[in-house]
């Protein structure tokens, strides 16, 4: 259940950013999560609901961008779609490959709400 740790890390980063920006609340957050990143979407959603309670993210709208895996064969340089970490190169069959995309775990952006002076 590392998803809860991940959610708590997100809360911590966002609270710090929101405080720095003088925000009253955070209305939206967008995450880039790689499909090869060990984040299980159902477990993440469950952890999200509990992890954001009483935080600046409590009322925020969550947008998840799931990024497909892409590998580059270390033998023949072929770029290929990687659904599992053990997918071999479709051209030469080698398991020696580099993961180019799909391991992301990033906070892309947040939308903060600021109180107007007037």
């Amino acid at each position: 259940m590392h998803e809860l740790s991940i959610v708590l890390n997100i809360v911590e980063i966002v609270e710090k950013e929101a405080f720095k920006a003088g925000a009253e609340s955070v209305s939206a957050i967008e995450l880039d999560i790689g499909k090869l990143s060990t984040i299980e979407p159902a477990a993440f959603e469950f952890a999200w609901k509990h992890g954001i309670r009483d935080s600046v993210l409590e009322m925020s709208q969550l947008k998840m961008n799931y990024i497909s895996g892409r590998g580059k064969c270390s033998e023949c340089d072929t770029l290929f779609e990687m659904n599992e970490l053990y997918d071999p190169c479709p051209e030469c069959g080698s398991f020696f490959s580099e993961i180019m995309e799909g391991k992301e775990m990033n906070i892309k952006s947040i939308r903060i709400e600021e109180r107007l002076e007037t």
Partner: protein
Amino acid sequence: MCITCGCGTDSAQIVKKDRHHKHSHGSQNGELHSHDHHHHHDHEAPHGHDHSHSHTQNETRQHNTESRMIHLEKDILHENALLAARNRGYLDAKGILAINLVSSPGSGKTMLLERTLTDLNEELMFSVIEGDQQTTVDADRIEATGTNAVQINTGKGCHLDAHMVMHAIRDLKPAEESVLFIENVGNLVCPSMFDLGENERVVIISVTEGDDKPLKYPDMFLTSESCIINKIDLLPYVPFDCDKLIENAKKINPNLTFFQVSCTTGEGLDSWYDWLRECSSGLKNG
């Protein structure tokens, strides 16, 4: 309060042992040091701010607030990565070889340590960080071999992180040019994501677990440098094919080094010990 991170009170606990009385076991004699592993560092990565205002969002608040988008592009485990780099730098400067042992519960991590610490006692200096959700049972077992150990109790946490290890290293004060074993919480998924600042990550699998495990839990095999296949003395009694396990693990990580051992009979431990000696002297010399 921790000066590095400002942590106060919360879940993970480091149970300090009285190092001058290594053989007095009782889990009650340790001093409890409680701290919050949800830290509040102030390391900032550069990020862009978009100052274009939108008044179309959040209808309920649009009369007294305005929205602003902040583009962060920030790694969620950024803080852990910073602390891991800090641990790595400290250990590197002291010539300490740090090995993170990861596996499912019951694969024999603690017994492997007991054997290793006892057998190489004359040659190498060791210390051990034990990670478990509860109890000091494992640290007590390690201390019975005469090795300094600290126990981290993660409470409900399913893995160690770089912050817990930073505090444990502070308490343990491992000697220069020694070997520091970090026995992670028994879990084949979560610990794979958390760099602790180790030099080597070693995944342990026992023959009672099934040779298809690397395919079921690929991340741990992807992020490890070596794989120990333990309890090979039980091979006659279980349907486990070592070659199949190696083949499956190599599909995920073709660079893995394998050791086939039995901590009960001692079979195969020599090659593990040779590897340890080699890694340790490699670090000292360079």
